């Protein structure tokens, strides 16, 4: 077991290096750099292009130097824990991201809780009542959630929330609470706004999870051990909770790896439509304006979380299900 953990940890290093090279290359692929897009934006809004500032930024971000050196500057900063400096916000990256992380975390966490709370009972119910009228009804609802484009649902909900409940459009709180310290009133305002993004982002995830849970559980319900347990007179509910449900949990644990980066990424499209102060729109804007340090460092951060998350979920799986053997993978 110890060897396995050591090997996994060591393998993370080359993985992250490859990811960093890919991220850097892709961000650099479009022609031009942050400054050329900055100049174009200025021209479009008819503002004077300040040669002075351009020359200054060019030197500060090493834009005149070859790409491989720019990469080394960036990566050596990352190793020292320095995420770099965002040209777009003119602030250290850690400061730009730091501010948005809390709200992103709140939205994502609420979404995950919502997804689980809704998907679990429905999934179990439709598996145990397979092909019943209510199974079809719930399945239909699930597919509806899966098929409706998120942004459309977001727009429709925004409109009704504003017209029917008088909730200010977009954002995560009423404007007067922005920048204020956390109070009860602010928290209430956040809760009032939170349900729309949670519902919208959660809709597709919920539907997917219902389907998976239902399928897994159906597999288990037909196995002999369950039939035996029922034949021995165990109550249906107890039998269900004690055995097949536990078996069908594996995919959820495996999901944790993907969940970790998701918690901080904040669904970008929905966040843009809803104008949420999360990291999603920030990443999009950074990529559009080719802000290398902000986009690159944030993506690296997410990549690192994914790698760690996958590792953790593998460990958790091994602990949960003794049938899974970690060492076996080597000989494959």
């Amino acid at each position: 077991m110890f060897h396995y953990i050591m090997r996994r940890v060591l393998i993370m290093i080359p993985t992250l290096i490859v990811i960093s090279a890919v991220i850097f290359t892709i961000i650099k692929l479009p022609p031009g750099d942050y400054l050329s897009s900055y100049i174009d934006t200025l021209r479009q809004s008819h503002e004077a292009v300040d040669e002075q500032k351009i020359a200054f930024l060019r030197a500060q971000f090493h834009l005149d130097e070859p790409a491989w050196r720019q990469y080394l500057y960036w990566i050596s900063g990352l190793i020292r824990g320095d995420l770099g400096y965002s040209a777009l916000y003119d602030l250290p990256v850690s400061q730009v991201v730091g501010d948005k992380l809390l709200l992103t975390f709140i939205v994502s966490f609420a979404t995950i809780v919502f997804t689980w709370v809704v998907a679990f009972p429905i999934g179990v119910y439709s598996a145990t009542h397979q092909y019943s009228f209510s199974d079809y009804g719930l399945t239909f609802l699930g597919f509806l959630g899966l098929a409706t484009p998120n942004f459309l649902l977001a727009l429709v909900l925004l409109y009704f929330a504003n017209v029917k409940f008088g909730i200010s459009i977009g954002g995560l709180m009423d404007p007067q609470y922005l920048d204020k310290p956390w109070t009860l009133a602010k928290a209430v305002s956040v809760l009032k706004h939170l349900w729309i993004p949670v519902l919208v982002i959660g809709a597709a995830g919920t539907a997917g999870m219902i389907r998976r849970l239902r399928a897994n559980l159906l597999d288990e319900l037909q196995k002999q051990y369950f039939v035996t347990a029922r034949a021995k007179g165990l109550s249906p509910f107890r039998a269900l909770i004690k055995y097949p449900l536990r078996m069908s949990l594996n995919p959820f644990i495996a999901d944790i790896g993907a969940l970790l980066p998701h918690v901080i990424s904040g669904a970008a499209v929905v966040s843009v439509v809803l104008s949420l102060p999360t990291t999603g729109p920030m990443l999009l804007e950074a990529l559009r304006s080719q802000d290398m340090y902000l986009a690159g460092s944030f993506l690296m951060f997410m990549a690192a979380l994914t790698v760690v998350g996958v590792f953790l979920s593998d460990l958790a799986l091994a602990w949960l299900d003794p049938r899974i053997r970690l060492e076996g993978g080597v000989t494959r």
Partner: protein
Amino acid sequence: MRKLLPLLAVVCLVALPAAHAQAVEPKETPALEEAVKAGTLPPVTERLPSDALVIRPVELGTPGGSLHMLMASAKDTRMMVVYGYTRLVVYTPDYKLEPDIAQSVDVEDGRVFTFHLRPGHKWSDGQPFTAEDFRYWFEDMASNKKLYTAGLPEQMLVDGKPPSFEVIDPQTVRYSWAKPNPLFLPTLAGPDPLYIYAPAHYMRQFNAKYADEKALDDLVKQYRVRNWTALHTKLFRPYHTDNPDLPVLDPWVLKTRPPADRFVFERNPYFHRIDPAGHQLPYIDTVELVIADSKIIPAKTGAGESDLQARYLRFDNYTFLKDAEDHNDYTVRLWRTAPGAQLALYPNLNAENPIWRQLNRDVRFRRALSLAIDRHEINEAMYYGLAIEGQNTVLPKSPLYDPAYRAAWAAYDPKQASRLLDEIGLTKRDSSGIRLLPDGRPLEIVIENAGESTEQADALELIRDTWAEVGIHLFSKPSQLDIWRRRVYSGATMMSIDRGIDNGLVAVETPPDEFVPTTQGQVQWPMWGQYIETKSKSGEPIDTPDAQELRRLYKAWLDATDVGERAEIWRKILEINARDVFSIGLVAGVPQPIVVSNKLHNVPEEGIFNWIPGAFFGYYHMDTFWLTPEASSQASTAPSKG
């Protein structure tokens, strides 16, 4: 014999009301009474300069209240500098220059500029604003190669030479050049002005020349920048408005440290303007900018979340906004915009492809394209007939306006267009009636654009039909701003669609640079512009006689000292542009919806919403806008209800 610009006469005239300043007894601002009583703020008489600028608002207002506006990004805090419009000299709504921060400006021969400051004028932190602040900028910033790597700004160089700078006394500074510098004052009065002064008392702590080395090193580390020059540049950006510690002279001062989603500006207690009743301006105590995505700003505005909104609203939002007027206690007004054209086609005279370059450079071709457009149809279909049809040139309100410029080759005349195309030799047609190029390919014009508005695509759809009648096939190719510009610059495009010239309200003193090759941003001749911009390092030299003539006239305008001479040159430039149809204008003067809360007063019913001239709300004195007192106190306690 000294020749004086008319500006001096203007300056003398408007210096008159300032002389009455003493007659106005300043009153303490209610919101600041407490601080004055507590002794943390000096009384209003000590905060105002001894010669405060008296502004006559449309109607006298009541100080107080909080104004809400929506913006799309943290960078938009600079709009408060634009709207606040406080400059050394400013333009009035009739486009005349007047002193503002400066008490007066004397101009000799258009080359020696003497600025007189207001005695007792103070920065927003209460420190005196004097000639030292000008000296600090000129000697310790602009002349320091480490800070200003590119040297003095271009507008301060005449034939590449900087001015000589003198401090005459603590209230007077002088800049003198050997030759006239007509760009100097307009640049100082621009919506994004050139700052030739800096708060020396604040900036010195970040300048290696003055600061203690150890303390400066600590600051550099604290701000996580590379060296002191980076720190100095980062902290002195009065236009970008991102440093709440920077002392300013604007009506409102930033109080929120970025990054944030809501920016609060509070009144500058040392602002130098006053109304005739003795209230220190601005009337409004605080301005709050809430950041939201630009696409949902029209929706939020319709829900009554902004007290004054025009930015990010477009003409096609008008009906939606008007519909919600009754529920949300606001009024939608329609102001005019002032670009020379809302939409214009730009044949690329520097196109890479030799056949297209030759065609685009043929004036008959450009005229034929223009004649084959039904502008009236575009106006009716897209703007309810409210726009002005015609070429991309000066607008009727400009003193240089001549209806002939706008009408030149702008009538819908497919017959004449066909004749012109035949004359060029494009007589062969394919089976579907499309003309053939000399090399046998069909005459298919691809019009590229930045893909940022559906407006351009809609207009092109209408043009496609009328062009097809004369045998031209139009394709529209939306792209993305960066990519589109790069393609234009490299000559990869045949033709583009974009906004027309920015300033359709030019005066004789306005530099004619938009009608002459000057920068690569001009998409009809990007290579020529680049050649001039880079001082012949890259791009292509101008090689058509008319464009060379434009260039020659532009130089003559810069050197001219006489108003009559400048006007004469301006006319010639406009005539050449009208004759040659370098850009094909469609419509201009498209209305801009302005949403104004019914609580907000002194916002004109009609106006021009424009960048230059206009500074958006700047020319209309946003510092004199005021809020109905009861309503504003309600708004600050109750959460906003849709």
